[in-house]
């Protein structure tokens, strides 16, 4: 296992990038519910959209374990700046990695260079009005027709649904789930923006309506019924770990703000930092952050080595980190008092964003069920 100190310089570069190109926009993104083009351009130039992709198609080159850790640290830094902006990079990776890992040679050759350069941004469309945690119950129909398939149905709550250039769409075929590559300008696909979410308001969510939406045969990734168990699962598995790292970054931002505020704000003739009940909150934050960071670290390390343990490690990291950020953000608002509750406070934004982290990419309860299942299986050996 490699230790964080080896990566300080790399992490610092992403923190500097975030402070320059993301933090100044974070509140605006939350208020306006959209990510400005200049932020996306800065991410493009910095190589954010290439991270996590294979080197022969434009991703960074190097030792896989090293790259997996760097990828995690990038998401940590992005999350520290804005959960909404991290979400854009996250879903791009989740959708794109399905093509990079499972696509045909032609699909990889066409899409992956466009994705790594950031010329095209991807989204992953699994959820439907009647289909949430139980994604295997997918209802959107793909029917084989002359020369390809037609999609009929609705996806909803899709991150970057308003903005992505291409969607990886889970559909039902006769023998089970399948994944299709659907450019956003495909005829028969309509996007309906969703506004006013609790948090992650810059996710640019949309409902996607597919009405007699024709796709050529080459749009199918692999074959059904592996659409969920292997293809979408690859994206979700990566996304879970990206998100866990983002929670660590959000938590770091909270802790740093609290340390500053607790030292500069005085009540009862003392800095807040002097009060033991405030110290308890700082202690809990510190401990949660250390624990979440280590879980993420271990998960990235196992993922980089393509270990079978990576899926469980990522699940545990996301489960812990997403709950930790909810505890931490709630305490961060508490330490900031009225200031923390104000519209200008990043703390209240992070508290709202934190709740989203417990719902997406496997809700807390769904992950609890999965982790318990792993434990039962292993314990019986």
């Amino acid at each position, binding site marked *: 296992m490699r230790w964080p100190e080896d990566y300080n310089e790399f992490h610092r570069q992403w923190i500097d990038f975030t402070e320059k190109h993301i933090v100044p926009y974070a509140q605006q993104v939350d208020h306006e519910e959209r990510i400005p083009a200049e932020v996306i351009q800065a991410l493009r130039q910095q190589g954010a959209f290439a991270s996590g992709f294979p080197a022969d198609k434009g991703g960074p080159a190097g030792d896989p374990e090293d790259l997996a850790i760097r990828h995690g640290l990038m998401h940590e830094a992005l999350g520290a700046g804005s959960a909404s902006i991290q979400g854009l990079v996250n879903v791009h990776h989740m959708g794109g990695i399905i093509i990079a890992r499972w696509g045909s040679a032609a699909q990889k050759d066409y899409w992956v260079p466009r994705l790594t350069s950031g010329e095209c941004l991807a989204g992953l469309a699994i959820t439907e009005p009647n289909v949430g945690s139980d994604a295997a119950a997918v209802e959107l129909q793909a029917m084989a027709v002359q020369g390809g398939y037609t999609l009929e149905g609705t996806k909803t709550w899709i991150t970057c649904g308003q903005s992505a250039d291409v969607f990886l769409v889970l559909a039902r075929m006769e023998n089970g789930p399948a994944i299709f590559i659907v450019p956003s300008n495909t005829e028969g696909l309509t996007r309906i923006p969703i506004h006013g979410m609790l948090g992650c308001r810059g996710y640019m969510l949309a409902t996607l309506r597919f009405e007699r939406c024709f796709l050529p045969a080459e749009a199918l990734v692999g074959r059904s019924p592996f659409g969920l168990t292997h293809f979408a*699962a690859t994206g979700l598995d990566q996304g879970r770990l990206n998100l866990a790292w983002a929670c660590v970054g959000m938590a770091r931002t909270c802790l740093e703000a609290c340390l500053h505020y607790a030292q500069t704000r005085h009540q009862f003739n003392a800095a807040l930092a002097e009060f033991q009940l405030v110290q308890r909150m700082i202690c809990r934050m510190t401990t949660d952050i250390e624990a979440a960071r280590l879980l993420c670290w271990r998960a990235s390390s196992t993922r980089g080595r393509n270990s079978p343990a990576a899926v469980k490690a990522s699940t545990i990291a996301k489960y812990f980190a997403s709950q930790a950020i909810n505890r931490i953000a709630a305490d961060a608002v508490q330490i900031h008092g009225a200031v923390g509750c104000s519209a200008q406070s990043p703390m209240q934004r992070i508290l709202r964003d934190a709740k989203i982290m417990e719902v997406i990419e496997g809700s807390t309860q769904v992950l609890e069920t999965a982790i318990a299942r792993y434990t039962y299986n292993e314990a019986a*050996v």
Partner: protein
Amino acid sequence: MSEVLVQTEEQITERIHGFLARSFAGRTLSEEDDIFALGFGNSLFAMQLVSFLEQEFHFQIESDDLEMDNFRTLRAMVQLVKKKIGA
């Protein structure tokens, strides 16, 4: 990564069997047991199985390899590995 280069059918069988036993609560599987019928077709297990086979036997599973019949039984997985590594 495993240090030993696995070649024989028995060795391949033994390694996959060991992984399945660890994943399936210590249950003893015969070479012909249908793991999907036993309820192990979920995505968390599927991803672990792919990583295990790739890491243990040093090859990449492509989407063309994804056929239910390649993963249904221990025997089928052994045949897939043999084909992929040319054993």
